[in-house]
């Protein structure tokens, strides 16, 4: 029992360190500073998208793939829960 807990912590720490290494190496090898690239788009969001609300402009235009991913997350969640909870005859009773 104790060995299993130590083994789980070992695996978790290895995965965590792997993620940290990837993030840090990405940040170190990024050629430009992040502020100079992004801040212009925040100011110009009204002219670029036609939306007065800057949050919506960023969420539904600049970061549209992020929104698509969130929608797919909800969709996959509901599909999985429906698969787990429903029994065989539930669709016939509906």
């Amino acid at each position, binding site marked *: 029992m104790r060995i299993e807990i130590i083994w789980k912590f070992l695996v978790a720490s290895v995965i965590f360190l792997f993620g940290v290494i990837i993030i840090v190496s990405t940040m170190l090898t990024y050629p430009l500073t992040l502020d100079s690239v992004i801040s212009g788009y925040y100011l110009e969001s009204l002219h*670029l*998208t036609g*939306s007065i609300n800057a949050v*919506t402009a960023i*969420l*539904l235009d600049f970061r549209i793939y992020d*929104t698509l991913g969130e929608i797919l997350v909800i969709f996959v969640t509901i599909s999985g*829960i*429906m698969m787990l*909870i429903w029994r065989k005859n539930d669709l016939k009773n509906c």
Partner: protein
Amino acid sequence: MTSRIVKIVSRELTPFIFLFGIYIIIYGHLSPGGGFQGGVVLAMGAILVMVIYGGEKMQKYVPHLAFIEILGVFLFVLFGLLSISYGKQFYSNLGTIWILNIIIGLKVFVGLVILYLLFIRWEISK
């Protein structure tokens, strides 16, 4: 099981919750708010009614709600493909932010209602 006060208050409060949620969705591109937030407000209004009055009668409508959910994903991707037909890149802006907001709001509303209905299903059948 629930008292008369709770029933009357929730019954009178629910239309205003729905109105506020629809307002947040439709004005999402002009004022603070958006599809997700408005959808969650709408879902809370529906879940309030189902907590007070019981959600047993809504159980048979889960496939219909799931169909709306699938239709939301389909329409969202379809609006991305629509910009290709105009000769632009995938998901480039055509002035359709408000339509995407409405689609997202409908989808989140239906999704949270489905989650609630599925989670109380085990409690009903017990």
